[in-house]
Each structure stands twice: as C-alpha cells, then as structure tokens.
C-alpha cells in the first residue's frame, strides 16, 4: 500500500527531472557494466568444475628433487613442490593402490587419417581406467576399458564425441578399429560432449591450460608407456637424462600427473600418511637425501594453486572496480543534489505527519527505482563488454572454453540487477539520511 504510493511519488519526481535521472542511470549503468564484465569472467574461471566430487579428488605432490634443485629452493629447505611426479613415483603410487580410485596420466600426441585420407594430428591422454569414473565422464556409446586392459597393455581407445563425429559420422564406432600413429586400436567407448572449464584434471601445461579443450582420445597408460609415446606436456629435469624413452622413465624428471579419489576426510588423512611413509621409504632406500615432504590437495586447493588469473584480468578488475567506485561517488553527488532540491516538498510531507522513517523509505524507494534501469543498462553493457572481450582475445584459451568463461552464467542476470539496486541505494545512503533529517518548520519557512 505504502510502497505503491512511494513508487508513484518516485516515478513522478524522476519524470520531473529527466536529464538528471538519465545521467544517474547511465553513470551507475556504466560502473555496473564494467565491473560485471570482469566479475563474470573471474567467476567463471574459479567455478567448481565437479561440484559433487571436488572434495574427494586429490593431487599428491612429492618432493623428488630435494633442497638442492627444488624450484625456488635454497639450502635452507624453502621452495615449492612440483605439480607433476616422476614416472617412478607415479607407478609406485599406482602399484600401492591405497586410494579408492587413482590414475596416473600424461598428454600424448598421435596421428590418424581423416575421412579425406590425409594425416590428422590428435591430442590424447594416457590414463588408467579409473579416470572415467573419477571425473564422471559421460559416455554416448560403450564405456571405459577394463582394469584387465590396463594390466594387459591392451590396444584400446576411448574417443571424444568430437573426434568420433569427425572420423565416424552418424554411426556407433564401438568395436571398430582406428589406426593411431601406425598402430591399430580397438574403440571401446565414445564419450558424450565433455569439456570441463576450467580443465581441472590437467592444469600443469602452463598458465593457459585451464582454458584448454579436453583431450580428443584416451589410451591406457600402460599401453602408451609400452609404445613409448612421447610426452606432449611439460617436462622438467634437474640433470642430464640418459638417451631414449627408457632414460626418461628412469630419470628424476617430473612429467606425470596423478589424481586419487579419497571419499572421506579420514581416507585423505590416511593417504597423506601413506605418501609420507612412501617418501620416507625412498629416503631409506637412498634415493632421497632429505626430510620427506609431501602434500595432498583437493580440487579447490589445486585450482587455487595452479590457475593464475591472467594479468589482463587482474589489471582490468582493479580498474573496473575503481571505475565503479567513481561512478557511485558520482551518483551520490547527483542524489544529494536531487534530495536537497526537493527539501521543500519533503518538508511539507514531514509537516503533514510523515515520520523520518517514512521520508527515509520514500527516498530509498526512489533510489531503487533509479537503480533498476541502471541495472538493465549495466546488463546490456556487460553483454557488450563480454563480446568485446571475446573479439579482442582478452582471455587466451580454446574457443569453446573462452566462450564459456565470457558468457553470463546462471543467476548472473539477477546478480547484476541486485548489485545495481544495492549499489545505487548504498551510494545514496548519506543523501537519504540527510533528507530524512530535514526540520519541517525550517523548510516551510523557506517556502
């Protein structure tokens, strides 16, 4: 009842001064647009890619290099741990099988033949069968290979939906064979569209790997090792390596990623103890000459550690929120002018019996009425800002992943409008407070 009266008052007073209202709407709209553009992308890059499992999936880290060569480490024992493992440690953890599910993996690059008969490069991943259940990979046809395939180094492959559509359009290729780098593999499964953003399962390939596409095909880890498929990811060594693939396997180079699924906190604690004991064992065997150092991080911790927000986004977020601040200060000034300009009218209302709270509420409604169209303007500018972010290649990554992080996610429209209204009302708090403190008699006298 009272609200509709206030709304009517607000709209009437806003229409009386269209230019000032339009200026306020535009100014707040620009501030909201700039900050929401940046916020949308920042939020999308930090979104939980696997919400029901992110607390169960863990990456183990082992200090295989020790103080002399550990990155950033001096003799004092400082420094950090690598995000990948040596082949020796990865197979050690795989053989121990201390987690409910676990997989070692690395990126491979293979080639096949396209339908047109020309060689076609494909990015793949060597992993264990557990990979598909751990990361909840959806399947269109068939399914993962079996544990026996892992053990038997079977020539089996799982294709992505995209690669399958390209090589075997409109058919179910499960059971057929595909030639990869001159070797025949049996297709056991075709994934449904699966492209997690950020691509959390492998964030180790440089600063943009979070926005890379998911792999085109998967082969058993053991098969890839036996076929000596070279690593297509990043590799770091602290010493000269013996020649050949065997040399790399025996080396202390780190290049294998590892994930473990640990359903409970107790399981995670036990696994960390196991990791510590593993490192202690390596020390006893004479491989490590330093105090064991191991870490175990879940998806959130891992993303926080591995995904560095691009410099472009960090700079523009600081600037965008500074911009919003200036816009709101600006709106506060304009609001102050509005309410002081209407002191006479408000004074009459006070004299006729409206309480301070009534006047305050009336002003809040009036600013909210400005905030809503400002939110709409802000939303339009956010769309424009995100489109220009894509057009200008502000965020480096695969086209699909970039499109995902530069589009308004669920609820962002509501968030934008609420933010606009709240920001406008907040910026007007002082003008509102002042308006509600007017002395009615004083204003009547001035009339």
């Amino acid at each position, binding site marked *: 009842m009272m609200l509709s009266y206030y709304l009517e008052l607000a709209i009437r007073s806003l229409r009386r001064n269209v230019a000032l209202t339009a200026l306020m709407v535009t100014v707040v709209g620009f501030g909201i647009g700039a900050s929401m553009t940046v916020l949308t992308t920042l939020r999308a890059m930090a979104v939980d890619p696997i919400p029901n499992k992110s607390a169960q999936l863990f990456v183990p880290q082992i200090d295989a290099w020790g103080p002399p060569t550990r990155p950033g480490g001096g003799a004092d024992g400082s420094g950090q741990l690598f995000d990948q493992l040596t082949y020796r440690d990865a197979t050690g953890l795989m053989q121990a099988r201390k987690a409910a599910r676990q997989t070692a993996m690395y990126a491979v690059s293979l080639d096949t033949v396209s339908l047109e008969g020309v060689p076609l490069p494909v990015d793949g991943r060597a992993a264990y069968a557990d990979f598909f259940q751990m990361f909840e990979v959806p399947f269109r046809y068939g399914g993962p290979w079996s544990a026996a395939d892992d053990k038997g180094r079977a020539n089996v492959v799982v294709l992505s939906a995209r690669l399958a559509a390209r090589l075997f359009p409109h058919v179910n290729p499960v059971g057929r064979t595909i030639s990869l780098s001159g070797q025949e593999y049996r297709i056991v499964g075709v994934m449904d569209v699966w492209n997690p953003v950020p691509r959390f399962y492998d964030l180790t390939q440089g600063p943009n790997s979070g926005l890379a596409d998911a792999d085109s095909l998967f082969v058993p880890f053991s098969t890839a090792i036996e076929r000596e498929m070279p690593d297509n990811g990043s590799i770091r060594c602290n010493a000269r390596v013996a020649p050949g693939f065997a040399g790399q396997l025996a080396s202390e180079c780190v290049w294998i990623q590892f994930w473990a699924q640990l359903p409970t906190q107790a399981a995670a604690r036990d696994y960390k103890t196991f990791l510590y004991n593993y490192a202690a064992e390596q020390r006893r065997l004479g491989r490590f000459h330093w105090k064991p150092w191991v870490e175990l991080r879940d998806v959130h911790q891992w993303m926080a550690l591995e995904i560095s927000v691009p410099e472009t986004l960090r*700079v523009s977020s600081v600037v965008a929120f500074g911009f919003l601040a*200036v816009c709101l200060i600006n709106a506060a000034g304009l609001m102050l002018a509005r309410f002081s300009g209407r002191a006479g009218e408000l004074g009459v209302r006070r004299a006729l019996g409206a309480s301070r709270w009534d006047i305050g509420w009336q002003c809040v409604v009036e600013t909210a009425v400005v905030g809503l169209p400002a939110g709409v303007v802000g939303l339009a500018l956010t769309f424009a800002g995100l489109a220009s972010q894509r057009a200008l290649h502000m965020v480096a990554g695969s086209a699909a992943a970039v499109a995902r992080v530069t589009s308004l996610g669920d609820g962002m429209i509501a968030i934008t409008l609420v933010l606009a209204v709240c920001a406008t009302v907040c910026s007007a708090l002082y003008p509102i407070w002042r308006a509600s403190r007017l002395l009615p008699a004083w204003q009547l006298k001035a009339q």
Partner: protein
Amino acid sequence: MAAAFMEVLPILKALRRNKVGAMLIGLQIALTLAIVCNCLSIIQQYRDQMASPSGLDEANIFTVSNTWVGHADDPKVRIAADLAALRSMPGVADAEESNGLPLGGSGWGTGINLKPDQQHPSASTTEYFVDEHALAVYGIKLTAGRWFSADEIRDFHLGEDLSAASIVMTRRLARALFPSGDALGQVIYLSAPTPLRVVGIVERAQSPWAGISHDASAVENSVFLPERYLNNYVTYVVRAHPGALATAMGAVRDRLYAVTRQRIILSVSPFREMRQRTYQTEQSLSVLLGVLCALLLIVTACGIVGLVLYWVSQRRRQIGMRRALGARRMDILRYFQLENLLIAGTGAVLGIAVGLAGNTWLAATLVLTRMSAGYICVGALIVLALSQAAVLWPALRAAAIPPAAAIRDL
C-alpha cells in the same frame, strides 16, 4: 595576491555549506586521476614492450611447423631433403631448421657457467640450435667475430649431450658475462662440461618468451649453437625475398608435399602473425584500458556538470543579488570557475598521492615499472583542465541569471 585571497575567502565560506557535495567532486577527481594515470602508464609500458625489436628481418620471414608420420629412418635425411626443396623455391632467399625462434613462445633454456664445475650459473639464456644458413635466414646483424661454417655443424638427437665446440651470443649477454668487453674468444660452459669458444657476437636476438617474460635479461639473453636439431617434429624458418612472402607461403605446402605426402603440416604462418599473437593480450588490454579511461573522464565531467548545475539553481537568489549589487557576468563566471579550481585542485593533490600509492601496489603485484611523479603531475593538469571545461557550461548559465532573480523568487 591579496585580491585573489579576498576572492577565495567567500568561496571557502560558501563551500562549507556544501561540504559533502564538494568532497564528492574532489574524491571523484582524485580517483579519476589515480586510475587514468596508472592506466596510461600501463598502456605506455605495453607499447614499449610491443615495439621492442626481435632482431630478425620480421617482414620477410615465415615459419612452417611439420611432423612426419610413418617414417622409421633418421630424420636427418628428411630434414635435409625438405631444406633443399625450400631453398630452391622461387622467391625464397634461404631456409633453416631450429628448435625455437624469437617470440615463438616455446624454446629451450639453460644456465651458462664460466668454469666447468660451477655450482650456480653466471647467467641464464635460451639456446637456439642452428646451421650455417641461420644468419642469412634470420637477418641478424653480426657485430663481432664470425658465424658458423658448414663443417662445424653437429647432429643433435633428443637426450644426447651437446657436441658443439663454438658458440655465438647476443651482445647483451656478452656484456653481462664479460663486462670488460672481451667476450670474443673466451670459453664458457652450458650444462655439460664441454668447453664452448665464443666465436661471434650478434647485435640482438630475443628469446622465445620475449612477449611472456618482462625480465629484460630473460628477453635478450640468447646463444646460438652449431647443432642440427634432429626430431620428428620440426619448425622450418624461411626468409623470402622482399615482396615475395605471400607467394612463397602460398606455394610452400605443395612444395613439401611433393617431397613426401606422409607428413602433417601443422601451420604456415608469417612472423608478423607470431608477433601479433605474442602481444595479443597487451594489445587488447591497451584498448580496453583506453576505453575505460575515456569513459571515466566523461563520467567525471558529467558528474561535475550535474552537481554544479544544481548548485547554480540553488543559489539563483544570491547570484541575482550579487548581480543587483553590481557584480558583472564575468565575476559570477569567475566565481564558479575558481570554486571548481579549489575543489578539483584539492582532489588532484589527493589524486597524485593515491595514484602514486596505487602505482607502487601495481608494481609490486604485477610486473610493472614505476611511473614518474612528473607523469602524474601532467595528468593532474589535464584533469584540472577537464574539470574547468566541465564547469564552464553551468557557470555560463549562472552568469546569465538576471539581477531581477533576486526578487523574483521571493
């Protein structure tokens, strides 16, 4: 001086009644100045970075990345055949094969030691494996010594130790290692204990990560080794005759397919494109920040116009009274301009402080060079001029108020 003071005093008194409004304008000016100056200094730095030369004849170079399928023989034969085909192409001046290229994004890094058993390296550098053609292909300027001869070039397979005996480095790296300027003829060591004699110095050759790293020594430290990089995945660097780049690039796929069809040509791209890709983020961020700065200045100007217009309407009676008492239009105009100068001036002083503090923070968080105090002072003058321009319209409206307004509104 005294007259000016006499003029300022009533303005200050009047401002005390509009404290908050004046504070809001001042604060806006301060923040605008701080943000705009920092943005412009970031843009300036990006422009400098983007303009830094790679050392190569960029206009005439293109790269071909290639991988073979289904070959079991030594890649040395295949690479030699491809290079012969490339070098005999019309429009092509020369071609070579390397493990990396300035601005290429990926390459090999290593430490340089001055003694064989050194614990910590004296400098870090990128290593390019090249043959006797590379100097002509890249178009790099040799400033001292000589380039490699054909009989110096060794074969290099992945995982093997270097077998070269000579090395060429950039002038910057030579100066860093041998400050007295006698780098030529000295012996240095890369990670293996094999001695390498410095036979030549080149003027400039940026590292593959020149666009990624902001560290000057990482950008300009490069060495060339006479090694043939033998791998199944290779990148050819081709230099075309001036004006023949497009033709040569158009014909290169067919030329290589004629050698063998059992290959995948992953890309054929001009060096220009590589530079563009490398500095994509800097380029787009410059545009974005520029647009934001322009908007910010417009918003601030609009805010000043709006608030001062309101002040003028609020003071119609007083202005009319002043006019009636003999003040000229010019005096009214001057009053508002001076009032704005006081507010904006205070804001600008605050803005300089906030801007410099913000710059310190930015320089610590991001890899940015500090901006000079002179820079932000010039910015302050520009923002003051803008603020004066913004207040002109409301001030003219105030000056147009007739003396009769003093009694009309009573």
